[in-house]
Each structure stands twice: as structure tokens, then as C-alpha cells.
């Protein structure tokens, strides 16, 4: 498989306050995101994960190094629209990314900007709303919807661009558990059924359980990179970075230290229960 996004020694610094040093948010990130994959980027607040996300579609430009989207350099201004059309972004606050006061008008916003013909916009809007399960709300006012529903509208607004990749920049952080589940199952389905690459930035460990790959950021660098099983079993390292492990791994780790013969990488509740039950029989 080929890479949709590639960063090379990517560095980024926020401008300093008067007299201070510039704050480096990214200190040399090398990353390749495979087309069609589901990648979760974890890290505590200030680890640089949101900054990284914003470099993926040229909202922020590298101060050093490069970011390529399907081979296109994000520093090339002529390619800006082409890059943003391929990599869509969903942000944290659902209220601050909805532009219009009718759902369909909002979803139509990006295709309108791209100059898509009217009949084609209609088709895209309807398809996008069906894909996120919000078609019945087509003429509703967005401010009356729940947080999870608003985020699904935001996702539909991105899908209407027909992008290759969706980046969710802490898009679940302000939602309740129900809204979070709605958004997660929506993006998992889009990944599975439409082959859209998903990059999910979050600090909720349990959102990473079903990912293909977990990237952990700390202090502007990638510190861990692997499957959820590989990453979550490195308990001590995760804790030292201010992150937690799923309770399943925590429990298995304790039992291992108690001398039980259980694996550490049974991440889900069912797998974990199977492993413990098997060990208990012996």
C-alpha cells in the first residue's frame, strides 16, 4: 500500500511571547500514513498531537522538514486547494465548525467552494448525510441537534469533498459517551466501507482499541508506534508519559506479577475474560 501522508523531519514552533523563546511543538516527526488505514494518535495535552494534525492539510506549515499529501508538498501554495480537498478536518468544538443554519446548506459548503455543479452537489450532500446516518435531518437547524449529531454533520461536510483522508482533531473530546460512540462507529464504518483513511487524534485510550495502528506523541516527538496490542502492553512507558492503559491490560499485568500465566495483550473485555478463565482452569 502507498502512503497518503508522509512527514519528513517535521518541525514546528509557535511564535514566542515578548522576549521569550519560541515554543517547539514538533521536534522532528517522521511518519508515513498508509492509504485506507485507521490510525489513532495519542498523547497528553501539549504533546504536539494537535499541531501535527494541523500540518496534514496545510493549516500549519512546517518550520523545518516537509509534509507530503499524496506526494504534494504542503509548502506549495498552488496545491493548497488540492491538498485540503484530499485531507478533511473535523475539530473539537462542534458549534464552531458549522457554517450555515440549515444542515444541507452546511454540508454543501465545501463542494460549493470547490465549484462543483449544482446537481452534483445535491447528490454529494444526500450521499454524505446518508453515510453518517443523518439524512432525516437534512432541513433541520444544526444548533438544535446533540453534540454527537453536530459532529456527524461536520463529518458529512468533510465527506462531501470526497476526500482520501479524514483527520479528527480531538473531535470526541467535548462529547458525552453516547455522542462519542456515534462518532466512532461512523468513522469506523467510513473507513471500512469507503476505504477512507482515518486519523483520530485523542487522549481517550479506549478509542484506540480497534485501530490498525497507534502512534503515541510526547514532547513533540513520536515515542511509540505500533498496533494497539504492541503499544498498550508497554505499561510503564505509557504511564511515564501521563497516559493510562486500559483496565484489561492493567488487570492482566497485576495477575502476571502475581505469578499467573496470562498474556498482556488481551485488550478487549471478552479477550481478557477468556485469558483469565483459561488461566484459572489450570
Amino acid at each position, binding site marked *: 500500500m502507498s502512503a497518503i501522508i508522509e512527514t519528513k523531519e517535521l518541525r514546528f514552533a509557535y511564535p514566542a511571547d515578548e522576549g521569550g523563546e519560541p515554543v517547539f511543538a514538533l521536534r522532528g516527526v517522521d511518519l508515513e500514513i498508509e492509504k485506507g488505514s485507521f490510525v489513532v494518535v495519542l498523547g*497528553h*495535552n*501539549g504533546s504536539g498531537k494537535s499541531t501535527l494534525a494541523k500540518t496534514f492539510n496545510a493549516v500549519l506549515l512546517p518550520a523545518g522538514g516537509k509534509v507530503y499529501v499524496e506526494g504534494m508538498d504542503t509548502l506549495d501554495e498552488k496545491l493548497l486547494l488540492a491538498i485540503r480537498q484530499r485531507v478533511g478536518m473535523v475539530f*473539537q468544538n462542534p458549534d464552531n465548525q458549522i457554517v450555515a443554519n440549515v444542515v444541507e446548506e452546511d454540508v454543501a459548503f465545501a463542494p460549493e467552494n470547490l465549484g462543483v455543479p449544482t446537481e452534483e452537489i445535491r447528490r454529494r450532500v444526500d450521499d454524505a448525510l446518508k453515510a453518517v446516518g443523518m439524512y432525516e435531518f437534512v432541513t433541520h437547524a444544526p444548533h438544535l441537534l*446533540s*453534540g454527537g449529531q453536530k459532529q456527524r454533520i461536520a463529518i458529512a461536510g468533510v465527506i462531501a469533498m470526497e476526500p482520501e483522508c479524514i483527520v479528527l482533531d480531538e473531535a470526541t*473530546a*467535548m462529547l*458525552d*459517551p*453516547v*455522542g462519542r460512540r456515534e462518532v466512532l462507529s461512523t468513522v469506523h464504518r467510513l473507513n471500512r466501507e469507503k476505504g477512507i483513511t482515518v486519523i483520530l487524534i485523542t*487522549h481517550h*485510550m*479506549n478509542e484506540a482499541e480497534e485501530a490498525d495502528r497507534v502512534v503515541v506523541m510526547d514532547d513533540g516527538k513520536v515515542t511509540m508506534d505500533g498496533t494497539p496490542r504492541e503499544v498498550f502492553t508497554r505499561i510503564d512507558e505509557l504511564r511515564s508519559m*501521563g*497516559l*493510562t492503559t*486500559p*483496565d*484489561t491490560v*492493567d*488487570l492482566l499485568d*497485576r*495477575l502476571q506479577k*502475581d505469578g499467573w500465566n496470562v498474556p498482556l495483550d488481551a485488550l478487549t*473485555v*471478552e479477550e*481478557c*475474560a*477468556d485469558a*483469565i*478463565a483459561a488461566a*484459572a*482452569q489450570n
Partner: protein
Amino acid sequence: MEPILQIKNLTHTYGVGTPFQRSAVEDMSFDVYEGEFLGIIGHTGSGKSTLIQHLNGLLKPTAGQVLLGGKDIWAEPKKIRDVRFRVGLVFQYPEYQLFEETVYKDIAFGPTNQGKTGDELDRCVRDAARLVGIRDDQLDKSPFELSGGQKRRVALAGVLAMEPEVLVLDEPTAGLDPAGRENLMANIRDFHRNRHTTVILVSHSMDEIAQNVDRILVLKSAHVLMSGTPAEVFARADELLTAGLDVPQVTRIAMALKERGLDIDPAVYTVEALEQQILALRKGGAVC
């Protein structure tokens, strides 16, 4: 234990007489005891937000009563402000209500409204700042220079500085990362332990509730669904799940183990407790 707050047949109806008439809280009754740490959990729309705004008189009941220290808070509507000082309410994302030039002045807003001045005011502000881990040298800074987590601490201190008898927190850790969440909850636990203040924690997170509170109140569509200690509530985990609520991951592991025929009591909610139960399996040889 004495009840400090008594909620009696509380009903709140929005839009009376319009086609949108809807009761957010319906005939709810429960007591909050002095010095306890109470958790309230429920979906968005279960009536949590409406309920807590009755506890300090921001909303007036359509029917029913709220008693504070045995007295109806609406007995003298002109003195409702006093109720707000005695029952401190910290809203969701409280950092968005900061407005003063300095952290000190912002924390002092509540106690100044109470009429505190001079040394007493200074003591309240500094005590509250210390409780949430704001350093002395940060007090003269603009609150808008601080990080998101610190802003939230300042906002929390702004309510603590009124030295309320009951502290109500609506989703205090929303949007924070795991370390930030744990730090803030540790501050709140310390405050509860040292001051013996009654604390009511409203949260979406079953894990957070399970690890902190003495008693849980589960709300569902404007009614109280369950009330009891965490162990009592999670013993009814099946009901919680059918009501569309989460149970802690540990409880779910315990339920899955029980399904597999192991002798495990699913009413657990900490990793340590479940570990002990599993270890006991081997010692007792109680495997069926």
C-alpha cells in the same frame, strides 16, 4: 447522618402551555447527607443539568421543594443569593466564565459579592488558590495567559473561595487529558476530606464516579433510576446497560468472567478488588 439538602417531589417543566412542553425533572425525591460525596450520573437529557440548577436556586421548581438545612430555599425569594453562596455550583467548562484582569481578582469575585473584605477576603482567595494548586506568583497574572487546565482550576477556586457548605460540580474534568483529570479529581478529593464539605459530582464517566464517590444517583429520563453505594449500583450492571448507560470496564470484565462460570461477584469497580477476587479463586479452588 443529617440530610443537608432534601429534594422533595421536584418537577421542572419547560415551555408550559406551548406545544414544546416537556418535563426535564419529574417528581424527583432524594436526600443529600452532610459530608458525603455523591455522584450523579445519567445521559445528556436525563435531567441532570436542570436538577443541579435547582440546588442553588438558579431555577425555580415548577412543583416540589428544595430544602437546605431543613428550610425551603424559596421561602424568601429575596434571599436566594445567600443560597447560592451556601451551595457552590461549578458549571461545565467553567474557564469560559473568567473575566477579571488578574487571577486573584477573578477568584475574589464570589467572596466579594458575599460582602467579604480585607483580611478575610484575602484568606479565602489564597486558601482556594492553594486548594486547586495555583501558585502565589500566578495570582497576579492574567487568567487568559494560563493553560486550559490551569484556567479551569482558577474557575474552580472562584467557587471554592465562597466556602460553600455544598459543592456541586458539573463535569469538572470534561476535555482534560488523563493526567489532568486525575490531578483535578485528587484536588477535589483532598478538599472533600479536609473540609468535610458535601460534594456532588455530576459526570458522564462511570469510571470517574465509581472511583470517587460514596453514593451514586442514577438518573434516567427525568426520574431517579437507582440510588446506592457503588457496589450496590454496579451489582445491577445489567439494568444500567439496558438503560443505555456505561458500567466501568472492570465491572464488565467481572461480568464476562461470571458468564464463563467463574465464581466472581460482578459488583466490583476497581482493578485491585477484581484482582483480589481472581486470586481468591485459586486459593479456594472455587472453579466450577
